């Protein structure tokens, strides 16, 4: 039997060999650290420190300001330099807490104390996850305690640890599964306590045999947990793709994974849950891949949240002579955000910085649509990007939404990738979706 997969999808060049197998290099920040208050989906966190305050590593510096929001802790000990707007990856500005480290990394009290999670109640587990400020570390940044607060926990049949890592260039999840497989398995076991009827499944694309072997080894003895190798195909790591493979169910707009009996968390998130529950350790550090042909020594780094991107690039030895980047991405080439500069910090959901000497988007001109239908064939949702494009350009939003189901688009970008005419389809769909949603709110 071939490895499992979903319908559609594309095969972008992997380029994972640049960093695959490179162990995490612990990066000690030299300059100031910036903690953006909106580094998660939902309401920005409320700062609870002021300029001049001295903070310890692990100390809360911003408070969740609603149900869908997350706490933020300082990842170093040092002095608050400012609470002011700073640039974000998306291009705007957001309120941020700026801290100058004192280099001592003095931990706040109570952090690191081992706890047996089996003695904790479900509510205590959820509280620890919430206090630790854990959010989806695969990219979305959705507050994890919200995701785990399901109305009917007994209806959850699968807890999926997402180690697919289908995005090209990025290897930090691969590396985490190789270096900390037992912690991920334990984290999954903790999540299974919240959902008594569920089984744990670690999904990994089959281009990571070492990670699969390490996880299989670590899951031995965990009866309810299994490792599921998947075909290497983008967007295999997407929530919907995973659920369709594991549970055989398809999500539609407005449905949460829980509606299909699934909870999906990135492997890094699962490990963070383990650290938070068993060691009372808030989310302070994460693995980040710095890669791309512009980078002198690409590698994986163990980075304190808030560290400036420039420091990461410097740690790699800077840019290659003559191959300076034309495009720098927060994340990978398929879903990443193009950065206008390196003045943005590492956030909880930042898994990579990718620097490309040549921008493939600018390489070839956009030409007329041939109606070849390749976009239809790669769309993992079975939509018709070709017809959606025509409707969107004509602003026939009724047809776009009701006949072509355009709002279902998950913006994976497969259509833009495959298009021989190089049409920026996904961009058009994002804009159209935003316009339709804005019109609905009126």
């Amino acid at each position, binding site marked *: 039997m071939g490895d499992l997969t979903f319908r559609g999808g594309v095969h972008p060049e992997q380029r994972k060999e640049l960093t695959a197998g490179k162990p995490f290099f612990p990066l000690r920040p030299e300059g100031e650290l910036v903690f953006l208050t909106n580094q998660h989906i939902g309401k920005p966190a409320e700062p609870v420190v002021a300029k001049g305050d001295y903070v310890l590593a692990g100390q809360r510096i911003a408070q969740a300001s609603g149900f869908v929001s997350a706490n933020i802790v300082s990842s170093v000990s040092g002095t608050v330099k400012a609470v002011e707007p700073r640039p974000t990856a998306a291009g705007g500005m957001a309120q941020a807490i700026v801290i100058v480290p004192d280099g001592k990394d003095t931990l706040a009290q109570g952090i690191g104390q081992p706890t047996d999670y089996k003695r904790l109640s479900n509510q205590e587990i959820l509280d620890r996850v919430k206090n630790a400020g854990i959010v989806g570390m695969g990219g979305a940044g959705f507050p994890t305690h919200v995701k785990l607060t399901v109305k009917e926990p007994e209806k959850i049949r699968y807890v999926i640890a997402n180690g697919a890592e289908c995005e090209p260039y990025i290897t930090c999840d691969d590396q985490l599964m190789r270096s900390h497989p037992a912690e991920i398995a334990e984290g999954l076991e903790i999540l299974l306590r919240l959902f008594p009827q569920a089984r744990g499944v670690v999904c990994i694309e089959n281009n990571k045999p070492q990670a699969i072997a390490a996880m299989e080894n670590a899951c031995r003895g965990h009866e309810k947990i299994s490792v599921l190798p998947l075909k290497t195909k983008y967007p295999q790591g997407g929530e919907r793709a995973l659920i369709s493979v594991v549970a055989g169910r398809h999500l539609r707009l407005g449905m949460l994974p829980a509606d299909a009996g699934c909870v999906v968390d990135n492997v890094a998130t699962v490990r963070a849950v383990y650290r938070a529950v068993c060691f009372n350790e808030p989310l302070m550090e994460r693995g980040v891949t710095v890669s791309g042909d512009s980078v002198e020594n690409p590698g994986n780094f163990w980075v304190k949240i808030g560290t400036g991107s420039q420091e990461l690039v410097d740690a790699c030895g800077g840019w290659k002579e003559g191959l300076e980047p034309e495009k720098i991405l927060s994340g990978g080439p398929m879903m990443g955000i193009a950065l*206008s500069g390196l003045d943005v910090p590492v956030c909880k959901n930042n898994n990579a910085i990718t620097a490309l000497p040549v921008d493939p988007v600018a390489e070839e001109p956009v030409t007329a649509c041939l109606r070849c239908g390749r976009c239809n064939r790669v769309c993992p949702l079975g939509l*018709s990007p070709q017809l959606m494009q025509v409707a969107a350009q004509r602003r026939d939003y009724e047809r776009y939404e009701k006949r072509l189901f355009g709002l279902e688009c998950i913006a994976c970008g497969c259509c833009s990738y495959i298009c021989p005419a190089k049409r920026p389809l996904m961009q058009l769909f994002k804009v159209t979706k935003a316009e339709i949603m804005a019109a609905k709110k009126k």
Partner: protein
Amino acid sequence: MRELLHLSSAPHDRGSLSTKTVMRDVLLALLPTAVLGIWAHGWYAGFIMLVSIAAAVVTEYLFNLATKRGNTIGDASAVVTGLLLALTLPAQVPVYVPVLGAVFAILVVKCLFGGLGHNIMNPALAGRSFLLISFGASMTGYTLDGVSAATPLAEAAAGRSVDVVAMALGNTSGVIGSSALGLLAGGIYLLLSRGITWEIPTATIGSAAAFLALFGGHGLDPAYLVPQLLGGGLLMAAFFMATDPVTGPSTTKGQLLYGALTGVLIGLFRVKGNAADSTTYAVLLANLFGNLIDELFIPVPYGFRIPKEFKKAIPKPVSILLVITLIAGAVLSGVYVTTSDRIARNSERANQAAYRSVVPGAESFRSLELAQETAGTTQIQKVLAGLDGSGQTLGYAIAVHNSQSYDGGLTLVVGILPDGTVTGIHFTELHETAGMGMRCGEPEFTRQFENVNVPAFALGKGTAGGHGTIDSVAGATVSSTAVVDAVNAALAYFAANLK
């Protein structure tokens, strides 16, 4: 670091496929057919291809220039159109034919509709149908080695055996790109390189084969079916014409229906119509439904239903079009049914008059069986013996068709006495240029053939008639030559078979 970084929406990677590589793959796939076409029909066929491609590219370039659009010839789609057009032409066409065809295909069919991606018909085939209408004679004057002959498809339809190996190599009377082997090889290459998908070719060939087997009148007889499938442009249509993404549907189910429609139309036109151009018109007709078919098969994601208001709206344009087509079809066939008898009667009466005028005194005519051989551009259509009351042969009336006239071919009846004297000629089909070629039909010209006994006529100037030298009609040498050749063909037939 550079001062300015590129910013754009994700994804930041693009597949290796581009419009240019798609077109390059089509050209590569056509290569074997083009090479075999030159091998079978000579270097002139290659010249026709180059002329056609050049005309297509130059037309698109000039149109872009004139309308101040960005230059689009770089996408190589005009090259594909030019080559496809050339491959659907007979090898002996005059050089202006591909030029005009390519200009029409690119300018009218493609550019005026908005350029690549917006044309509603396949430019190459629309260009070909334009040429079929405008230059009927040279577009259907299929030859091999300079000799006109029936195409394998016509041979098979007439129940004669066909050399399948010659068809595979394209070494038959027909268009330049008629090699079944070359087309198949190209089609398989496109399938493997994912330039096209399997749905349209399979559905087209399958449904055409099924239709011909059911309604062709020969059942599953391979001697009939194999040439039908290998010839007549079916493979060209299945792999290169119907698969043109611009004019076809893009959904999988839509492509299956579209291919089936194309195949059935090809079969229908072959069984009930003129075999030679069935494919061209079948694909062009299917083109008109290409985009509408997609409307029927818009995929519906799991868990969704099409809202009512859209369910109703879908078939509306389709049904309107269908009704219009049905009414037009009914009117046309009604006209045909009510007039066909009269047309046949009238033409028979005209023929009888022609026979009588060239064999004076004959009371009845008896059809003689035709000797098989016909070579060159002239064709003996009918030979009749004119009989007097006692059944004695007074003379012969021979109907000859010559396709090499100025416009569309001419047909005339030659009267020949048993001693070989030509009594005169009478035209039954002549549509040359008014005031020039048409004057061939006037007595001043035809009189020169009356009561002359020579082995063959020759075209001359300034000599009196009677010696077998014919004064050409001024300014209509082509038409005059065609007449003389036709009469000479009749004389040659008489000498060989009746003397």
